[in-house]
């Protein structure tokens, strides 16, 4: 971690000329066009815009969860779309953490198993102890064996944060992390997220339509009609 913080100032995540076009009936629908973006290590960037402006699509492309129609993305020095899907997944496992609006916890796994998942996928033998520690850090040490349906929305999002941070990612991608939460829970989750971010020197890229939340990030990128407008 220290090595990363002290590394030369070079974008940890960069997009060049990213575009996304999907077929919609007979015509083509342009979701994103010609997006250039560079995120420096340790930076906190908010992507804001109205619904349908292409925020979530951009986030999915930055993570390599979807394929762009044009352009390229570099993550941690590696050209994402030059890799095959498996290599992209491995890179994600190494370098990225995710927080989704709808949490995306697996309902058949309890809190601990959900947090262990990325570690298990990476073949880490200390998966259980590391996940336990992380859950204690987010305040869920007493609820390790509760299933998602028995947790509140705020608690579920904290499990999701634990799952995201447990692999100590270089970049955390958050898609409307408070979108499914009430104000108090949302505030608690955001506070925790920024705290962890600072603690671990993680780079944060967050999609949100909440201007207050965006203002807490160092930089705001505005999207409109699939383009960066500011």
């Amino acid at each position, binding site marked *: 971690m220290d090595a990363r913080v002290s590394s030369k100032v070079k974008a940890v995540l960069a997009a060049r000329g990213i575009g996304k076009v999907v077929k919609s009936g007979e015509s083509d629908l342009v979701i994103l066009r010609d997006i250039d973006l560079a995120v420096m290590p340790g930076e906190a960037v908010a992507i804001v815009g109205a619904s349908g402006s292409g925020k979530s699509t951009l986030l999915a492309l930055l993570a390599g969860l*979807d394929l762009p129609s044009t352009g390229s993305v570099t993550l941690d020095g590696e050209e994402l779309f030059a890799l095959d899907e498996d290599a992209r997944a491995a890179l994600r*496992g190494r370098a990225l953490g995710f927080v989704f609006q*709808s949490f*995306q916890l697996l309902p*058949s796994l309890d809190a601990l*198993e959900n947090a262990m998942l990325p570690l*298990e*996928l990476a073949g880490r033998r200390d998966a259980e102890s590391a996940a336990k520690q992380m859950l204690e850090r987010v305040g869920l040490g007493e609820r390790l064996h509760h299933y998602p349906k028995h947790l509140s929305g705020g608690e579920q999002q904290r499990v999701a944060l634990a799952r995201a941070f447990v692999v100590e990612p270089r970049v955390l991608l958050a898609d409307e992390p408070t979108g499914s939460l009430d104000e108090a829970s949302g505030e608690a989750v955001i506070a925790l997220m920024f705290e962890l971010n600072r603690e671990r020197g993680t780079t944060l890229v967050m999609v949100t339509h909440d201007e207050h939340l965006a203002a807490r990030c160092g930089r705001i990128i505005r999207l409109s009609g699939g383009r960066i407008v500011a």
Partner: protein
Amino acid sequence: MRGRLRSAPGLNQSDAPAPHGPARGTVWLDERLTSALGVKPGGRVKLGNAEFPVAAVLTLEPDRGANFFNIAPRLMMNKDDLPATGLVQTGSRVYYQLLAAGERKDVDEFSAWARERLGRGQRLESLENARPEVRNTIDRAQSFLGLTALLAAVLAGVAIALGTRRFVERHLDGCAVMRCLGVSQSRLLALYASEFLMLGLAACAAGCVTGYAAHALIAQWIAQLLQAQLPAATALPALQGFLVGLVLLLGFALPPLIQLKNVPAVRVMRRESGAPRGGAIAAYAAGFASLAALLLWQAGDVKLGAIVVAGFAAAIVVFVAAAWLALRVAASGALARSIGARSMALRLGLASLRRHSRSNAIQVASLALGLTAILLLSITRADLIGAWRRAAPPDAPNRFMLNIQPDQLAPLKEFFASNAIPMPDLYPMIRGRLAEVNGKPVSDRDFTDERARRLIEREFNLSFSAESPAHNRVVSGRWFDARAGGRDEVSMEEGLGKTLGLKLGDTVRFNIAGEPYVARITSLRALKWDSMKVNFFFIGEPAALERHPTSWITSFRVAPEHEPLINQLAARFPNLTIVDIGAALKQLQTVLDQVILAVQFVFLFALAAGLLVLYSALVATEDERRRETAVMRAFGASSAQVVAAQRTEFAAMGLVAGLLATGGALAISAVLARRVFDLELPSNGWLWLAGPLAGLVLLSVNAWLSSRKVLKVSPALTLRDTG
């Protein structure tokens, strides 16, 4: 009338349907008589006072009975020529037969009408009361068809339940939104119920059309084989089809749909709320009960229906419990730990197996149910048909030899030995009239049943033997023990007991050439009438019967090359009656082959239902797996990890499902073979290998297809879809 006479211009020449019988002044001889008399078409035969030219060789009489004491070679003549022969006069034994065929309703009406008017010596015969050897075949075919139909219906029910469950899971969100918007629960239920009802009506209509088309196809095909026209299908099956289809749909689709109406509106806020509850057991039980009642009514065979319905109900419960237990043990035991230590993918697969143990148990139980039906139908079908053929094998005896005198036994054995023909088993035969039952005299007037009256009127053929014949099975009581003073004991055929109202423990008194023979019935035997072996209604203890005048009887098979020996045998022992039952046997084999063909065609429908269940069970958890895979991919799982995890999970499930299905299929087939089909099944040890292997292969292929499918779609898209 069904079928056509066929004749040929000469012996061993190709035959053709005959538009009518022999013309006036001519006769037709069948092949056996033609060769026995050494007369060719064009030659002349003398019949009573008249002489006729032989016009053709009679090759097929579809209406010919095969009661073997009545299958002397055939001569067919024109009825108008009969008076000239002088054959019909006082003391002649002449039988008249009226053959009737038609719509079932008309035939039933005619039977009821005729039964009331039957005079002395007249009887009404049908497949149900004539020809025991063919009846067995038809009964078993009916049972197998009943089984096939029952299985198809049960499987369809399971497929509907599984399919609806998935439908419900996919519509939960929509329902929650509608509840938010103020739609009442009853309206929600009415909405989906009417949608299902319309779908059900359309599906039933499509099913009926397919059914009639298949019937037409089978009818045409069988008509070619039988050279007979089958009656057209009536409207009743369509009505039954609709009824069964709708009961299946409502019985198995309504319980999950009721869960849909119970979705709380809060699910709009919290997706975890209002997931379908596993326990709608009461609703499912009601569906199953109504289906069971309908099936029992429709199958018409209560025993078969009860075995299948109860067998499958028990199987569902046992399968779910056993699958849950087996998956937990497989995934969490020391085995899983040692396997998991070697491979992360295996560990993930086994962990997933443990975590999904409840939904996986349902999936495994459904798979096991589908596999059970397929194994039951396909493998036991082969067993049943094999056993069926063995009961009337192609090498069954084709000659009966009667009236062998005790002093002829030694020279007869010598004759067989000198011609290198294996000596058949010889059975003693004593003729006796049944005089009393439990001390009361019996008379034919005591019975209303025509067959019972004929039996009482005639002399019975009694036999004696220290051991029960190998092709007989004692079904109640016990075989007498000669050493323990079994002199006054007799064994009776169970069917005769039903006809004459005799039971175990009754004392019977026979009159054998003026001498009494009194014995108590101490065992009942089941016989295989279609085995073409010598069978007796009563078998007594040797010491009690051998002092009575005895002749001997046997049945044996004569290979075509040994046919001339029969003539030598007849010449050397002129008092013997040698009956050729080859023609009857051939007819029986033909009926058997045709019935088997028809049965196999219907079997395909049930097989399709079994496959439908397998498919429904496999896609039931597809949505959940897609989402899980997408999340795993987002957190860095490689495709190899996804594939290996799914393969491990599915392979374990396939193995468990295969094992359960094998046990289920073997248990149900054993009960069916004994209780319904009356057949001995060979042991099927290899099924324990084939069943689990089938499950393993099937689910491994599914794992491969399923992971290919989830890996093809980008994780972002899946996560967005499954939100």
